[in-house]
């Protein structure tokens, strides 16, 4: 199995169509094409972090600055960033739009991803973070726009889980 270039393009177009011009990310296999497209796009600023919790702070700074932005990370990175999500975004009511590669679930061949994959949805539910799964390249653009809009109107973190169906060929 390989990462889908075609569907990555659909995701990236969705990000652009949402008006986002600032991305904070930590590289991960499913996000490779997305990050390459961001690097090659003169309209986009891409900030790569050392650990995902940093990205929460950077995204909040970008929001304060009035810059439409979102985060790209793996679900394990989301798990590593939870205190930032809770004690910055939720505590201060700052919007956060997260695109999360949902590794370690149905069809996952790699054992090391599985525990994070299994707990991602229950953790999102327990935190009260609204989320949806993105599975269809024809719909993902609309889902990204809606996630971004909803984060801004609800002043809340919002997650769109990028699924295997979408990200792999």
């Amino acid at each position, binding site marked *: 199995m390989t990462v889908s270039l075609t569907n990555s393009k659909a995701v990236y177009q969705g990000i652009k169509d949402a008006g986002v011009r600032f991305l904070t990310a930590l590289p991960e296999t499913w996000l490779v094409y997305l990050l390459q497209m961001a690097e090659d796009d003169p309209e986009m600023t891409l900030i*790569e972090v050392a650990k995902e919790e*940093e990205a929460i*702070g950077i995204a909040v700074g970008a929001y*304060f*600055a009035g*810059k439409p932005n979102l985060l790209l990370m793996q679900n394990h990175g989301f798990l590593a960033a939870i205190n930032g999500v809770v004690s*910055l975004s939720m505590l*201060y009511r700052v919007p956060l739009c997260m695109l999360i590669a949902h590794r370690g679930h149905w069809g996952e061949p790699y054992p090391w991803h599985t525990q994070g994959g299994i707990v991602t949805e229950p953790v999102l539910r327990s935190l009260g973070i609204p989320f949806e799964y993105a599975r269809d390249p024809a719909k993902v653009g609309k889902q990204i726009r809606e996630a971004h809009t909803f984060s801004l109107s609800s002043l809340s973190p919002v997650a769109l889980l990028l699924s295997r169906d979408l990200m792999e060929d």
Partner: protein
Amino acid sequence: MKRAKCIEAIYSELQDKLVVTIMGACAQELYDLGHCENFFYLEHAMGLASSIGLGLALNLPHERVVVMDGDGSVLMNLGTLTTLARYHPPNLTHIIFDNGSLLSTGGFASHTTAGITDLAAIARGAGIKNVALVSTPFDFIEATADAFERNELSVIVAKVEAVGPDHYGMDLKLPENAFRFERYIKEHSKIRTE
């Protein structure tokens, strides 16, 4: 050298800058000098003040951003120094008040106590070129004046005593601080571009 005296010494210089502080003593000491709409106090999420400062500085190149950090917070997010170094916004000054103590959470010794860990060396090793290590008020004022003038990312590690205020509390709810800070930026940057 006391942190409160350092903050007081540069307070007038902060009026036209975006200021992000960490929780506890640092936030309280700045607040007690008089809250300004351009101050954001990160009362939790330890380690992320510098990350917020980075997000601000990269997106507001015409503004000056000052982060007031502490050794305990920086130790929780050492990766931030590498990210700051990589993107090095020229309009960001990162002040780290190093009291060698987790003062606001019981005064336990941090890893910087008695010089075991050298945060200035870590900042330099991360790739930040302009790093100052100061331990007197004169040197602190000189280092901040230099940082505010120059068009380069600066880190100032200020060795201070492990003492804080005798009271805590603000007449400012946390989301209110965020809403007002955002509004200040919106209105202020509008003025700048007009």
